[in-house]
């Protein structure tokens, strides 16, 4: 910069106006930063779950004379639920492989399987929540149950949103085919879906298994 000899009229040696910054932004192809941006969203979502986990960690032993985790958690049911989420992860993986091979119908089939496993997961969780509330172990019973319903319920809400997103994308692909925009959306949902599975590892370990040990 110091080598530039400023003339009074603000022009350089060639007579062009001096510019000290780039006037035009680089060309960014559409969607080139979507994946990184979506990853940033997932990381911030991860922090939401971290605070909910922290709240559960703090309040998880405040039973207020009510039921303890050991009394109300049904581990076989949780194991089935975990299996549903794991199966949905592998079927989504297969859907992504079919997408790369450009085989739309097979991809749609795998996506449908993913949706069904997701729905099975949600149904089992709904059944579990309904049973708990029916037994008098609802979210208002104790601080432990409040934090439990908040944490597990937030995860369940995410899966519900993922399911709605999945159905939407299946309709989109049916209508417009495997265009670049749809592929990008499917890759975002793939990250979202696998991310929810990672959160569930924390839930079943920290909440269900460790709760049953106490």
């Amino acid at each position, binding site marked *: 910069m110091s*080598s*530039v000899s400023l003339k009074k009229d603000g022009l*350089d*040696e*060639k007579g*062009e106006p001096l510019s000290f910054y*780039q006037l035009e932004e*680089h*060309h*960014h*192809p559409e969607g*080139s930063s979507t*994946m*990184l941006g979506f*990853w*940033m969203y997932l*990381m911030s979502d*991860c*922090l939401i779950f*971290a*605070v909910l*986990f*922290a*709240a559960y*960690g*703090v309040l998880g032993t405040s039973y207020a004379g009510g039921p303890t985790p050991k009394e109300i958690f049904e*581990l*076989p049911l*949780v*194991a089935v639920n*975990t*299996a549903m989420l*794991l199966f949905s*992860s*592998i079927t989504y*993986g*297969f859907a*992504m*492989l079919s*997408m*790369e091979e450009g085989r739309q119908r097979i991809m749609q089939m795998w996506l449908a399987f993913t949706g069904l496993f997701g729905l099975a997961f949600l149904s089992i969780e709904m059944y579990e929540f309904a049973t708990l509330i029916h037994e008098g172990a609802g979210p208002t019973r104790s601080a432990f149950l409040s934090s439990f319903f908040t944490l597990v319920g937030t995860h369940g809400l995410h899966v519900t949103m993922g399911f709605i997103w999945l159905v939407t994308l299946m309709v989109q692909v049916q209508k417009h085919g495997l265009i670049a925009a749809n592929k990008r959306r499917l*890759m975002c949902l*793939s*990250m979202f879906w*696998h*991310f929810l*599975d*990672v959160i569930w*590892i*924390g839930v*079943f*370990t*920290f909440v269900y*298994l*460790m709760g*049953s*040990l*106490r």
Partner: protein
Amino acid sequence: MTDRPATAHDAHADHAHDDHGHGDDHASHGTRKSYLKGFFLSVILTAIPFWAVMTGAFKDPSTAALVIMLFAVIQIVVHMIYFLHMNGKSENGWTMMALIFTIILVVITLSGSIWVMYHLNTNMMPMQAAVDM
């Protein structure tokens, strides 16, 4: 002055273009084999802690808690590698940087909350003692 920014800009533009080339397939490094490998690893890493807790294989609860937490951490890493295709290279390493930053925040939040609240609970005056006074 006029030449140097121009070359720098071109180099940057080429670089950005290369990035985009990678960006197209960066989230899809998986193969059928790697997905199946990740799946079987997760099944094993899920089944062992469930089996250990449901059968009461460990006598000492704190040993059991440590073991199942270790399994959870391993399984999270497996999911990150085989399902989320994490590596240090995607998006010029920014996904990894964001992940490391998030992990640091999660550890501070979790350990800080539990530590502070545990001490608060143990140092709190018992209700009966307060009534007696």
